[in-house]
């Protein structure tokens, strides 16, 4: 079935609500409005306001009550309206959601999913274009995934809801309206990286909104005779390190691409792991392409802030030329 990434999420939520009476959807404006990105469109009509819950504007409250609901046996899927509005919930996520299973010696499991529309590229005002995956990926006790395609949006979300792990689920908002195929079943487990495009000269490692950019860069590089591999990490915590090591072990060259500021970003983790694990195979340093160490700029500058085809190719060229 061909559908948009946004619609692929909606059908995943619909399926989960339909098959498991314990699944709940909750967040600001997820009901009658269907969410500001319409991902929950129609769900309240079909499942009622007790299962598709319009919450007060209180992000700590959303995650905190979801934790309580999960302790009662429910499986809440929370929507945070925009990436920049997850911080009021940070305490509940980092100290409660992430740690509860471990601190109770496994007595409490919290199958809570937190959906976060993430990253830029839609010309939004401030606080609406943050790429904050590194905060969560560094937090032990969370599973963090990033969907880049309708197929992953649908199946990763279903897997996330079915999983007993607390999952931070990132949706690249600039890709909500992109279309793609959704297969009848998942092709990969939640934790696996995917080789989106095979290639022998260099591996581009990326996720979320940048997967498409990297594919475009690979296509452009092909015209210049370079055969780039593109790997979508999908799972940002835990990272499928073995798959990355395997890929870069073959090509010997790698560039990591993400939207978040490079410094302290998850690209550092990827680059450091590869530099350690592929030390003897690397023919050039692992370069990172990402946002600058500045607050996400005003919309008219975002094309300069976000990595684009040219900036990716620039890093690719340097790496190939090394």
């Amino acid at each position: 079935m061909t559908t948009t990434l946004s619609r692929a999420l909606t059908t995943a939520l619909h399926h989960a609500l339909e098959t498991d009476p314990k699944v709940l959807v909750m967040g600001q404006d997820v009901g009658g409005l269907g969410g500001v990105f319409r991902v929950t469109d129609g769900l309240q009509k079909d499942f009622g306001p007790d299962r598709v819950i319009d919450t007060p504007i209180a992000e700590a409250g959303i995650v905190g009550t979801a934790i309580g609901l999960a302790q009662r046996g429910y499986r809440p899927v929370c929507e945070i309206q925009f990436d920049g509005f997850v911080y009021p919930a940070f305490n509940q996520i980092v100290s409660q959601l992430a740690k509860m299973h471990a601190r109770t010696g496994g007595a409490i499991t919290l199958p809570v999913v937190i959906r976060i529309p993430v990253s830029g590229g839609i010309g939004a005002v401030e606080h609406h274009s943050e790429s904050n995956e590194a905060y969560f990926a560094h937090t032990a006790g969370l599973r963090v995934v990033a969907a880049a395609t309708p197929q992953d949006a649908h199946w990763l979300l279903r897997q996330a809801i079915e999983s007993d792990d607390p999952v931070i689920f990132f949706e690249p908002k600039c890709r909500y309206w992109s279309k793609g195929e959704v297969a009848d079943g998942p092709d990969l487990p939640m934790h696996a990286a995917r080789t989106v495009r095979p290639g022998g000269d260099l591996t581009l490692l990326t996720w979320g909104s940048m997967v498409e950019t990297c594919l475009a860069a690979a296509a452009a590089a092909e015209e210049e005779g370079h055969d780039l591999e593109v790997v979508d990490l999908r799972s940002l915590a835990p990272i499928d390190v073995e798959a990355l090591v395997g890929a870069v072990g073959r090509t010997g060259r790698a560039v990591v691409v993400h939207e978040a500021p490079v410094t302290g970003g998850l690209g550092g983790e990827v680059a450091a792991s590869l530099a350690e694990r592929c030390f003897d195979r690397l023919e050039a340093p692992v370069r990172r392409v990402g946002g600058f160490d500045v607050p996400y700029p005003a919309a008219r500058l975002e094309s300069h802030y976000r990595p684009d085809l040219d900036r990716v190719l620039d890093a690719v060229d340097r790496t190939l030329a090394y």
Partner: protein
Amino acid sequence: METYVLLGADGRLSDEPAARDVTPELCRGLYRDMVLARRLDSEAYSLQRQGELGLWLQCLGQEAAQVGSIRAIRDDDPVFPSYRDHAAALCRGIGPEALLAQWRGVRQSGWDPAEHRFGVYTLVLAAQLLHAVGYAMGVQRDGTDEVVLAYFGDGSSSEGEANEAFNWAATVNAPVVFFCQNNQWAISTPTSRQFGAPLHRRAAGFGLATELVDGNDVLAVHAATRRAAETVRRGGGPALVEATTYRMAGHSTSDDPTRYRTEAELDHWRARDPIDRLRTLLDREGWADEAFHADLDAEADALGAETRRVCRAMPDPDPSTMFDHVLPGGSPVLAAQRDGYAAYLASFEDAS
């Protein structure tokens, strides 16, 4: 608590004592502020529709709440706004270029807060309320008598930070007036799903002096805010004014309010338009002549024209500005990134 009204929906002044302070000058001034704000708001809306702005959040319908309140405090009283407070901003001399820049996406904020004693817009709900309390603690320490005014919405009141601000202010007796524009909606969420008891009651529970006022009655808002501000100024402790009003437009230009509210509800509020209401009074009392209205129309037209002009004239910022003002103390890492990016951009020019 009864809603405080001075000018009824029918445009008649009540016999409240405060009605005696209502002068023609006051009414003409408030009327002018509201009319100009509405014009700016509707011009900005059109500009968004033409693609000149990325987004716009209208203050349509809330002019009385904003104008009435900001005109009730002193010019040197600092204000911490939310993001829909264009009418209030205009009263503080913030012009269309400054007001539109953020929404055009050329800057993250439009004006210098110190110059206008009016903070930048805060898009993260309720965060500004704590800033207002902190600022007010500074006022206390300085031993001066400014009153800090902080705007927020009904929906924002559910945030933990809003409630920390109420409690903190009450605890330290901070000279702050929290002003809630309860416009009935937070995007698609009605107040019934936002709180279980009226906000003004909650505020009283925190120990704040409270006012509940008809937010579409600019005279009542003015009188109530003045009362609250004067109590605060005299050291009587913080206050909260809840103004009942209505967001006549969608939440933003991205919103589709027909998904969640009815035409009947809109009609109800159309009949309570704050500008029409004051106009009725002006007309009945003969407090504004034709010349006044003609001048005001001309002024509004000029503002509209200026709004269109300055909006279209705003150039895209230079990419290097992205690296400015990140850390006042500077950073070699950032300087390297700035220089590296400049060199990278230059490499394209060299190539072409």
